[in-house]
């Protein structure tokens, strides 16, 4: 599938993982810090006193997943209702309801959301 994307640093600012957020603020002013991070990210983090252990990774993962959930809600809010029937059912606390048709000759299955009635 490969598609190349250039990352927009401004977009990444919302991922303010502490203590990375402090480093991000300093990079704007300290070019040497930026160069050291690019040359050796793990080593530079250690020099800056950031210990990358399991607890650190769990903390970052939790913050990261929280941001994903927030991003998902925001993006889903921009999608028209008719394109997100299952999401709406889940958000409303209802089971996902579908009507399934099975072709008796071919066995082909067709599934459509069931949004009216029981």
């Amino acid at each position, binding site marked *: *599938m*490969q*598609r*190349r*994307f*250039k*990352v927009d*640093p401004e*977009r*990444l*600012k919302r*991922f303010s*993982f502490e203590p*990375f957020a402090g*480093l*991000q603020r300093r*990079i704007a002013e300290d070019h040497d810090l*930026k*160069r050291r*991070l*690019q*040359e050796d*990210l793990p080593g530079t983090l250690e020099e800056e006193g950031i210990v990358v252990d399991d607890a650190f990774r769990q903390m*970052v*993962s939790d913050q*990261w997943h929280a*941001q*994903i*959930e927030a*991003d*998902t*809600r925001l*993006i*889903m809010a*921009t*999608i028209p209702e008719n*394109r*997100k*029937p*299952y*999401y709406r059912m*889940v*958000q409303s606390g209802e*089971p*996902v*309801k*579908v*009507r*399934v*048709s*099975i072709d*008796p000759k071919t066995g082909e*299955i067709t*599934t459509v959301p*069931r949004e009216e009635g*029981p």
Partner: protein
Amino acid sequence: MSTGGYDVVMEIHEDLINTFLRIAYCLGRLPTFEGIYTLPVPDVPPDLLEFMDIGYRVSLAREPTFEVTDTGGLQITIRGEAVITLLGSISFDLEAQFRIAAAPEFDQPTRQFRIECSEALIEDLELDNRYHLPASVLAKLNQILAIGMEAFLTDEVTTIELSPVIFSADLPFMPAGEAYRLPIGLGAARVFPPSVVMGAVNLLGYTGGSSTAVTDFTNGHHIGIGINEAAMHRVYDFWWAHTTHPKTMDVMGSYEYDPPSFVDFLDALIDWGTAILTGGLVVTEVDLDRVWIEAEATMGFSKFTFDLLPGNAVSLSGSVNLEIGVNVYMQITTTTNLFWGLWEVDETTSTVELFDLYASGITVIINNAEGIVTLDSSRRLMVTLTALDIDIPLPWSVPEFILDYIVDWVVSRIVSEMPPIVLFPAVIEQTLPGTAVSITVSGETLEINETEALVTMNIGTSGANTYAPYIANMNSGEVHVRDCDWAHRIAQRNRVYYCTLEDAIADGYNGCYYCLREYDTG
């Protein structure tokens, strides 16, 4: 209700009975009988005792014919050849035609139609009168013959199998053993003039039904089989309680997404991957290599409830207990530029787990399910699902493209892994028991009303080439028994099949030196 409240009603046309009588005759299932009748003369001197014996040997000259009478009785007409031996060595050849009154029966162990012979009447007697016996002696001979043949026909050949096995006692996916075959209880038998015989049975201990309420539903077919809805429920309950078919399955699935699927999330995916890999601390370019989903689940199916509706429709409902885990991944390649694009210094391909979802104890409800009753390839009565409502309580607020896959995957697995809904075992077994005769079915119809399923069909059999005991060679002029090595070598185009050796010899064939030496005239 055509089944009269019985679980299973089987109706068979007299034409089909006669077909199987012809096969039985050809296979020698209607045997020869012989014996000695001693004249009841008192005080016979010992040296004359042997002259009081009258020997007889009777065999069928032609296949019997079966008939339903206009008055609702059954009769079989048999023409037999008899050899009577008097005074130790004087033989008389004769032919006798018998009419035998009979009653229909359904044999539980074999699940075949039979008839029970009750009395025999000699209609015609032809004696080869080479010895010019007085008429009074002939009359006595007839009396002796009548006594002997009646005794034989009512005591020794009291039942004759008339049909293929109407239905199997074996359901699919069941353990071996008698306890897992359908127990069958006799219901009733009845005759529908002018041509149909009926037998009714009940299953699994049920004892209801009324023979006067049963109707003829064969519509001119060879066989009709009616199955009451109550029997279907009993059979399905019995099957569900004992089946070896899995009711809980572990399933897995995966799917590679194409970009249009997640176009709304494209920028977010790049952000998420880059953020977790770099903390946003370095400038990178990113190749989005793959986005995919992996799922696994354990599904536990409950027994369905069902109800027959008019017009071959079935309504069903059930549930599935679900434990499910889903993971969504992306693979990205990040390129970190040193000196802001002058050259690449670090390219790393990483797999990032975006979503790790798990839920257990989910009850998926199946409701408003519709199906049709069908005969599968083995002629078992089954329900084929055509539509259903499925409610899946999922606890995850994840992007719609992920929910789309999860829902479609769960639905497809439920439909494909669902245990079958078995309503009745196979009807009309494929071969005639103990023979090489195969049974073919044509003109099959299946009519479902609200309370029963009625199956009618015509029955054909494989030809005489599969069962005739004698094979003649048109080329050599010899006749062989079926198992003779020389019989196997006869080209198909030169074969003539015979049910009796007498017919083959009457057509001019000579007995084989090896297998029919006593009939080899050189």
